[in-house]
């Protein structure tokens, strides 16, 4: 049994890498998988907050790399799920405290004990990104339906190719179905037209994400959240299940149809 290493990256900041990491790790662990996530964003750690584990940190990734503690000691057990662990980033150092070789070594030590190792990459294309990319078996690129985010995603795909990784898979995050329908937002199709890689999930914009992040309770545990469901679907696809994509672009749901009926009625009158 050896873990699959999934690196979540984007190039651009603020597109939802950390949210995606927290939710995929949670969804995988909730599906009885053994999961450890690693925050590779040294100096700007966030994943601990989003997972609600901030107050449990004693040792971090840099302590492990520099030999101040055993790997086991830096692994924080999740509050809710028994098979979910976090290795937090150091907050007081910067990316040069860890090298790509260090990451490969740490990950190789974790591999036999887990099913999934999920790495949250920092934004950018420098050392931190290279650290996160080095041990990856699967690269997941998070992007928003926004030209600048897509441009950066394209750059990252090129760099992953240069490192001879398998073709990355795409998560399109923060889609707003209403705006897509009005033609005010890039569609999944437009994004894929440029990036030309496999789409593994579309996550709708959801106010709950912000609240969940502040409360440290990933949405993937919330059965009523659309974004949470989208993340659970991505986790299932990672595990090899065939899950049809939720269509946020054409289907408008009962409420949408009703509003349109009302609107049409209003215009006719």
């Amino acid at each position, binding site marked *: 049994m050896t873990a699959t290493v999934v690196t979540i990256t984007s190039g651009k900041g603020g597109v939802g890498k950390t949210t995606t990491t927290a939710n995929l790790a949670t969804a995988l662990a909730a599906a009885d998988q053994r999961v450890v996530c690693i925050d590779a964003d040294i100096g700007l750690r966030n994943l601990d907050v989003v997972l609600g584990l901030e107050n449990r940190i004693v040792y971090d990734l840099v302590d492990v790399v520099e030999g101040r503690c055993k790997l086991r000691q830096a692994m924080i057990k999740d509050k809710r799920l028994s098979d979910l662990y976090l290795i937090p980033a150091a907050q007081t150092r910067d990316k040069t405290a860890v090298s790509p070789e260090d990451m490969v070594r740490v990950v190789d030590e974790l591999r036999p004990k887990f099913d999934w190792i999920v790495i949250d990459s920092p934004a950018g294309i420098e050392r931190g990104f290279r650290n996160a990319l080095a041990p990856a078996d699967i690269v997941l690129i998070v992007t928003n339906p926004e030209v600048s985010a897509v441009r950066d995603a394209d750059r990252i*795909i090129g760099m992953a*190719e240069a490192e001879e990784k398998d073709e990355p898979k795409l998560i399109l995050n923060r889609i707003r179905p209403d705006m897509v329908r009005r033609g005010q937002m890039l569609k999944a199709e437009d994004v894929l037209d*440029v990036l030309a890689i496999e789409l593994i999930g579309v996550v709708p914009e959801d106010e709950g994400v912000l609240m969940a992040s502040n409360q440290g309770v990933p949405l993937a545990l919330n059965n009523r959240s659309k974004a949470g469901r989208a993340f659970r679907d991505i986790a299932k696809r990672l595990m090899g299940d065939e899950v049809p994509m939720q269509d946020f672009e054409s289907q408008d749901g009962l409420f949408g149809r009703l509003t349109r009926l009302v609107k049409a009625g209003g215009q006719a009158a």
Partner: protein
Amino acid sequence: MSTPLAIKGIGDGLLVTVPPGNWSAVRPSILQAIDERADFFRGARLVLQMHDRTLSAADLGGLRDALEVRQIALTGILSTTESTRSAGADLGLALEVPAPAIERADELEPIPTDLQGEEAVLIHRTLRSGQTVRHPGHVIVIGDVNPGAEIVAGGDVVVWGKLRGVVHAGATGDQRAVVCALDLSPTQLRIGSQISVSPERKGKSKPEMAYLRDEQLVAESWKHQ
């Protein structure tokens, strides 16, 4: 009557699969099958597929001599058994199917030409954001050129795909340089010292060629004459 042999052409020889069974019975049946088609086999180079059969150097050497009498060269054996492989190696036989014959580079004689500037690079992949290609000759891309990618060519640029990055043809001053693409919508297009941006596209994309006419950049849709 012998059992027919499975024969496959490989490169410059034949791959024959030796049927299973006791070697003392199989050996004569192979030779018999070969003798029945002596004309076909004469002069052939043979590789034998032995699978997991265990054979000594003496077995293989004897077979090689028997084949040699029939003007057939035993050049190799395939086997999964270590002792058979080492026996084959001792006899100087190849242990793998020789790579299929491909045209050797020195056999592809350049054709004499008086055309100028035919130096070109061919890039068979998509150029993504941040990737740059600079070449003093022509540049040919089979794939897309995404926004944020850049091509600078001394000569022409041909893109068999969508051209959406920055492209500069005739960068060393060649005013006759052209840019062709299946979908010509670059972020910026330069030929020689002229710069232009793509007009807003109306309708479906079609193959186009851009060039300089009276020092003006023009793009024309490709019509085959």
